[in-house]
């Protein structure tokens, strides 16, 4: 059978033995799991046993692309990195944009599975069919930007796309990520630390084979049509997001009374105007960049031209940096937030996990739990800009005992410190959340709780809670009331539905932002694009079932690791404390309401309400008999 869309090959790299092999991509995986996140999740389930040390050689590091990766389909340069996470000690993955994913597909691979661990630092060089592990001892220790340049020099092509880690990944920092093309991060779940544990510094790829598309003429029409739909049906967002990218959310969430402030104590920041898009674009942004085939070009490239940070540049700066290193730590200095983001990219740190861990340390210090002795002399008074930057650096390099503490991420650091420090760790399953307060976005808050990879704003399209009209919610979700962000009705249904759509996006390997604004992009576009690219007859029902399947595989993985209902809750702060100030003052998320939503969600997901484990009948219905049998054997069926 001639394949379209998928390259049809899995590349396996045994780092311990320094050997490679390719194997055909099983055809049943293509139609049941689509690609990227779906492929990776199943491979992880099948090949990484419960109890595996996330930083040991038995963990596997999996890079997966989707059937549209490398085509003209909008935002199709993406890929997913999956492994057992050292941050959550459970299922972990992270997804990134850029062009690296496209290069891998053009070289002829859908998936790379790294096994074992190298004896000495290495990087992988893929030049179509030529695969080589090269010595990376000379670049071990370099930041990710310099790593990219050295790898490009080594392979003799300064345009080569390089995914890699910085000093944080090398030092097994739990908040570290896998970077590509300088500033695109596969950020969540400590994937950088897993790569570091394998002594794999980078993966350079050059692909020249392209991707075979079954119906190119039809695909062109679909892509053009749906870009127009996006622009028309979500006009306001499209226009603003194209202009400003995610940094605009500082302004937006401030207006909505949802901006996490001083480690999530408050939702409104008194100096938000200083760190919003107005000053950022007026003084610093020079141009915009886009990932592969993206109609948004949301990525701002900025430089700081004068003052103590002169010479700093970055691109792809996000809300989680401009907000994370400002409101979250009570510091209204935009340059510090920009430098903080740039350092994260160079050091290979996740903005969110890094900023939240620092905010946790600041709150512990201000509450008297941490002292100057614990912080190696740093004064963590709210707003101390120099201390914010110093925390980032020490975390990345694990410098001193305080750097070692920060490198654990806030959950594990909180456990280590004790004395009530865990209360201030704003994590779910050990992972930091995002940048939207759950007390004022109940669907979003709930989505954080049940996300399979821990606290996470990207695992559902909960954003529609404040975008869609009640009429749209009624038609597409079946609950008008789900449109009330302060309400509780219809939220379980909304998250069940949109989690499945997101799993689908992540498996096709498209950017969430392309799907953000119109329900038609969820219910029409994926199966039309898949049909044109692969030549198979996809339907909405098939794609939706794939989304369900992927979510349940990940939940099954977590069940096998002992995670269940008890792990699907928000941090206590959000149940106990009302929003204290600002436009959403008094907002809350009572635990009994959360429980009701959780029951509603479990029912739809096919999960046992008591344990949170997947039920046999749902697994069988979705064609996951092997997983049902495995869970049954381990007594983890719901």
């Amino acid at each position, binding site marked *: 059978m001639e394949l379209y869309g998928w390259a049809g090959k899995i590349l396996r790299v045994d780092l311990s033995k320094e050997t490679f092999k390719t194997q055909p991509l099983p055809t049943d995986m293509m139609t049941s799991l689509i690609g990227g996140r779906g492929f990776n999740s199943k491979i992880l389930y099948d090949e990484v046993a419960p109890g595996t040390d996330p930083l040991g050689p038995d963990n596997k590091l999996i890079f997966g692309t989707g059937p549209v990766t490398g085509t003209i389909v909008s935002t199709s340069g993406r890929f997913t990195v999956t492994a057992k996470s050292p941050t959550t000690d459970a299922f972990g993955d992270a997804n990134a944009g850029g062009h690296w994913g496209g290069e891998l597909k053009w070289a002829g691979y859908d998936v790379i599975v790294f096994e074992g661990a190298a004896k000495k630092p290495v990087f992988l060089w893929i030049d179509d069919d030529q695969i080589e592990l090269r010595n990376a001892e000379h670049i071990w220790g370099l930041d990710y930007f310099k790593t990219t340049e050295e790898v490009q020099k080594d392979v003799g092509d300064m345009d080569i796309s390089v995914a890699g880690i910085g000093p944080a990944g090398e030092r097994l920092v739990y908040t570290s990520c896998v970077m590509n093309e300088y500033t695109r991060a596969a950020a969540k779940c400590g994937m950088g630390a897993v790569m570091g544990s394998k002594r794999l510094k980078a993966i350079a790829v050059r692909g020249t084979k392209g991707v075979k598309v079954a119906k190119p003429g039809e695909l062109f029409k679909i892509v053009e049509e749906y870009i127009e739909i996006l622009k*028309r049906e*979500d*006009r*306001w*967002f499209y*226009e*603003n997001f194209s*202009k*400003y990218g995610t940094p*605009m959310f500082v*302004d*937006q969430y401030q*207006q*909505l009374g949802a901006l996490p402030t001083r480690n999530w104590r408050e939702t409104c920041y008194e100096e938000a105007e200083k760190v*919003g*898009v*107005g000053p950022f*674009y*007026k003084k610093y942004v020079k141009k915009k960049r886009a990932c592969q085939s993206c109609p948004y070009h949301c990525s701002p490239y900025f430089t700081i031209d004068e003052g103590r940070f002169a010479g700093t540049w970055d691109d792809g700066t996000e809300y989680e940096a401009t907000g994370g290193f400002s409101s979250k730590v009570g510091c209204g200095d935009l340059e510090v937030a920009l430098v903080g983001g740039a350092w994260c990219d160079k050091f290979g740190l996740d903005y969110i996990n890094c900023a939240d861990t620092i905010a946790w340390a600041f709150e512990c210090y201000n509450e008297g739990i941490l002292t100057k002795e614990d912080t190696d002399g740093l004064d963590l008074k709210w707003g101390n800009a120099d201390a914010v930057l110093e925390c980032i650096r020490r975390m990345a390099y694990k410098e001193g005992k305080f750097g070692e503490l920060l490198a654990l991420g806030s959950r594990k650091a909180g456990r280590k410190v004790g004395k009530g420090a865990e209360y201030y760790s704003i994590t779910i399953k050990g992972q930091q959340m995002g940048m939207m307060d759950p007390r004022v976005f109940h669907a979003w808050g709930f989505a954080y709780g049940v996300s399979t990879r821990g606290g996470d704003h990207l695992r559902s399209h909960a954003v529609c809670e*404040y*975008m*869609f*009209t*009640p*009429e*749209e*919610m*009624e*038609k597409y979700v079946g609950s*008008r*009331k789900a*449109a*009330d*962000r*302060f*309400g509780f009705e219809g939220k379980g249904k909304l998250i069940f539905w949109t989690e499945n759509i997101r799993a689908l996006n992540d498996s096709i390997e498209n950017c969430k932002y392309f799907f953000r604004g119109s329900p*038609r992009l969820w219910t029409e576009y994926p199966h039309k694009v898949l049909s044109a690219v692969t030549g198979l007859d996809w339907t909405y029902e098939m794609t939706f079932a794939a989304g369900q399947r992927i979510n349940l595989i990940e939940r099954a993985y977590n069940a096998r690791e002992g995670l269940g209902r008890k792990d699907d809750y928000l941090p206590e702060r959000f149940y106990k404390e009302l929003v204290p100030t600002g436009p959403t003052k008094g907002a809350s998320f009572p635990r009994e309401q959360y429980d009701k939503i959780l029951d509603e969600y479990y029912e739809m997901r096919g999960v046992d309400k008591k344990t949170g484990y997947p039920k046999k009948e749902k697994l069988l219905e979705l064609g996951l008999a092997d997983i049902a049998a495995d869970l049954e054997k381990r007594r983890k069926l719901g």
Partner: protein
Amino acid sequence: MSKSDLDAIIRKEKLDGLIGKTHMMILEQVSQVDKQPQEIFDIVKGKHEVSSFTQVLRAIDQLKRISCVTVTGEKTTTLGSSDFGSKTEPTYKISELGRTLLNDLKK
């Protein structure tokens, strides 16, 4: 234009079944005086599950697409919903077709 013309525009814009009470509340607000989204949101918030200004912006866009409101100018805002960093946003008024829709929705 008649109700059947309106229905045809709604179908063409793929908004069948998606125009309802939210749009009625907005049309009522702009039927006498020109208003900007922020002013409309301040009045309708908390009613009929409308809880964010972004929902009002989206509903106004939908009304624009079916020619039921028109832009009349712009006014100062604190919401920043026109353009971040900008201090103004458009004002809207109901159109003739909008009155047809409003009457229909009121039924």
